[in-house]
């Protein structure tokens, strides 16, 4: 099957980001620990927000807010588990 263009993501992302992600569980790509995002250690006194694994300090996620633009990185997480209400 050929690939689809990025517009296909729109519906999926709108669904994901309309929910609160902090109770979601995710696996740290550094140590493999699975924990809720709410349990991460978050540093905000920095050029961006940095969330680190409570087990191993690995960077799980960053958010850089430029006002009219925002960068989200989740490269330190794999397998994010979301629960439907």
């Amino acid at each position, binding site marked *: 099957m050929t690939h689809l263009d990025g517009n296909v993501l729109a519906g999926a992302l709108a669904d994901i980001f309309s929910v609160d992600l902090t109770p979601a569980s995710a696996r740290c790509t550094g140590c493999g620990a699975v924990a809720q995002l709410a349990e991460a250690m978050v*540093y905000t006194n920095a*050029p*961006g927000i*940095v969330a680190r694994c409570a087990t191993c300090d690995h*960077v799980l996620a*960053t958010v*850089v807010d*430029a006002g009219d633009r925002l*960068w989200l990185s989740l490269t330190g997480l794999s397998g994010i588990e979301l629960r439907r209400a």
Partner: protein
Amino acid sequence: MSFVTRGFSGRARERDPRLPPGQTLVQDWPVLSAGPTPRIDTAEWEFVIRDETGADHRWSWDELLALGVEDITADIHCVTHWSKLEMPWRGVSVDKLFENVESQYDYVMAHSYGGYTTNVPLEDLLDGRAWIAIEADGEPLDPEHGGPARLLVPHLYFWKSAKWVRGLVMMPDDDPGFWEQNGYHLRGDPWKEERYW
């Protein structure tokens, strides 16, 4: 951010010409940290430059100081919009470290204790424009300000002045470091307001 700059233009004559656009002067020295503060004893501290052959050039703390510590006066500009002017520093010129390092590569990744990285073109580190800083404001660098040693590249935004620096790895391409992967500008010239991608 251009609307902010225009907003200030009516007061341009009152503005300190040493302040890049979008920056505000501070007297204190804010501490920014994206993670836990590493505590590195100078007895264990080591600095390494890795060239493209994979060879490591190493300096202990005493070997670093033996290269010659110089006085520096620098203005620093943080991308979070504060600047400090005429700050006294002491450190070892990066030129001294590269005296015996041969490399054809044009870029460097700075690595820190604690895992931080930031990319810098080699030419931004040479010709008296960058140091391994060990003192600021007449005191040894406090761990929360990056001690025992941090990179000091004052002509670029301060995220390039990597705290707890432990080494430089030569790179053929300008690969992005930590903040540069996550939204911040690859080079970060404060006079061009190179804040984000």
